[in-house]
């Protein structure tokens, strides 16, 4: 009973219902949105890149930081992977590992600058957003990696399925479950929340704040690297602008999913469902007869609605707590 109550009260449940509502409404209008092979696959695959970086972004935001550089990290790692495919015969699994490690290294650059120099993450990652993208453009120029450059067995990952479930979705789900388990059940994970709720208190309590924040940025970078590799598998072509603008989608997904921008509150589940909702709405609008030019407006309205809702819920809870205190007194 108690756990059922907790489930219905959870912030994530609301966003999940909204997601299901969108899917059902669209399917009623056009059944092939879910009940066709392409529709079903798109439903599961399209949000996965943003979902991955939203998970990393949620971990960073929970520590009261923000990572605006993820889009540029995707661009760099995707082009790195593409270049390795084009000019070398390295097996694709190794290429994927190199890209993930590269993403983690870029994340470590952010994390070290932030935790050692003690400067705000918003400024640093805004700077590295530019710097990483600039390096990418310098390196890429007007070249692009085409799908003919990429080995077939790797491109299969973009479309392959295992028991009707796309492989990309399975990869994302494994990452999501691991991250959720780490944040919820381990000591290190709980420290993320403690740091985000009150960095000074966490420091006084003896938590290694700098090290945790660094870890959050490394994870965020590594997941962006993974998303970069999957970008190559899914789209086949990579130019110098790959992944640009993803950072706002990741932050938007986390915020819609109930991760508070000032840290300490939320879960990667919420961020993941937020990403599903965000990208599914984009695909649902044209089906529902709304011109797709309005997509971004809907996304913006969703973000605003989500944070206003969170504020109202927080106020109501604060009021309930004072009432409880008063009645006890």
């Amino acid at each position, binding site marked *: 009973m108690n756990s059922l109550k907790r489930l219905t009260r959870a912030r994530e449940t609301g966003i999940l219902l909204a997601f299901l509502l969108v899917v059902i409404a669209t399917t009623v209008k056009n059944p092939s949105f879910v009940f066709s092979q392409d529709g079903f696959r798109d439903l599961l695959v399209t949000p996965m890149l943003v979902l991955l970086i939203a998970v990393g972004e949620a971990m960073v935001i929970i520590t009261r930081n*923000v990572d605006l550089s993820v889009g540029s990290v995707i661009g760099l790692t995707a082009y790195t992977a593409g270049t390795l495919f084009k000019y070398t015969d390295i097996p694709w699994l190794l290429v994927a590992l190199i890209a993930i490690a590269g993403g983690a290294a870029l994340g470590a650059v952010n994390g070290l*600058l932030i935790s050692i*120099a*003690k*400067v*705000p993450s*918003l*400024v*640093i990652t*805004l*700077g*590295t*957003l*530019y*710097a*990483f*993208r*600039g*390096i990418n*453009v*310098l390196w890429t*120029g007007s070249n692009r990696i085409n799908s003919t450059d990429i080995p077939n067995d790797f491109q299969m990952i973009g479309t392959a399925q295992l028991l009707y479930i796309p492989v990309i979705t399975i990869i994302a789900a494994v990452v999501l479950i691991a991250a959720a388990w780490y944040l919820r059940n381990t000591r290190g994970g709980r420290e993320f929340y403690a740091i985000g709720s009150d960095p000074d208190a966490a420091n006084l309590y003896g938590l290694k704040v700098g090290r945790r924040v660094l870890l959050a940025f490394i994870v965020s970078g590594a997941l962006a690297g993974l998303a970069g590799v999957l970008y190559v598998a899914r789209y086949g072509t990579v130019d*110098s602008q790959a992944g640009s603008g993803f950072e*706002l989608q990741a*932050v*938007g997904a986390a*915020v819609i999913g109930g991760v508070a*921008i*000032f840290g300490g509150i939320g879960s990667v589940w919420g961020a993941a469902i937020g990403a599903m909702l965000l990208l599914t709405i984009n695909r649902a609008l044209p089906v529902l007869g709304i*011109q797709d*030019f*309005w*997509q*971004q*407006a*809907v*996304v*913006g*309205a969703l*973000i*605003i609605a989500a*944070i*206003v809702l969170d*504020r109202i819920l927080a106020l109501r809870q604060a009021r309930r707590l004072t009432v409880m205190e008063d009645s006890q007194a």
Partner: protein
Amino acid sequence: MTTTTPPTTGSAANAASGARNYPGYGRPFWQRLLLRREAAIIGLLVVVIVVASATVPHFAAPITYNFLLLDMAPVLLISLPMTLIIITGEIDLSVASAMGLSSSVIGLLTQAHWPFPAAAGVALVVGAVGGAVNGLLVTRVGLPSLAVTIGTLALYRGVAQGLLGTTAVTSFPAFWTDLATSTIPGTLIPSVTIVIAVLAIVFGVLLHFTPFGRGIYAIGLSPDAAVFSGVKIQRTKFILFVLAGLVSALAGIFYTLRFGSARGDNATGLELSVVAAVLLGGVSIFGGRGALPGVLAGALVIGVLASALRLAGITSDVINVITGTLLVLSVILTSFLAWLQRTRLSAGRKRRVTNGPASS
């Protein structure tokens, strides 16, 4: 502000004589003027201009500055209200989307055969309303401005694209498009410089020489202390967000006229350039610190580097690397200097403590 820092050098002799004599400032005037972020960034601007003029062919020509000012005009304009907002400890990421929205509104009304001044007026009102929505959500509902303006960044851009779709409206009266790129008679300085200069003076006076402006710093340094000093925090922030919306709409009108094209995706991503210019100009992201001259210099440094590199034949995308690196370096340098000062101060204090009893 550095000027109000209490003196940290209370000597033992003064304490012994009983009469404490505090100087008005901790450091002499020339040091206060030169040893600050604004002076450093203005110095950097001068260095960049000198080096570019000496090494890049054709950079020293007046026409370079004409294009430079035209290119940087939107960033220069929006950085003015953005500076004030960041000094209060808030941020507005929706400014470029507000530009796009203003551009779309003008395009739509021009298509409907409105006279241009009326269309521009409506665009300004729309910009102010957009700013007011941000302001209300931040002040009345009490939401963090970072989250709110990421939301309205998507919202305003979405409405802008929804209004015009993929069409681009290009039929503007020649009088107005010529005016946007015209120069002050007899010179090559673009006329829009006058608008920038007037607004810079207005915002400079507002920030540095009025009680309202002192309130802005007070809010950024300590909101609680500001409340108790009688600063109307909510009203101040609300006004600043409305101003940001208004100036963004103005920049959107200029952008539309300069390129003679109203599109929903005009000026996408410009908010990052504005924030980079403001932070490069020495404004602290935590609020409470910064000054307008530094911000204008910061924006011009980015502009000069961009046009110098373009003239030198290096792809203009290098500017992204430079902007990013400058931004990162500038904050790390500040943090490093603060650390240096702290260790020097604490070392001095320790020395006094150990020497104190022996000398008395």
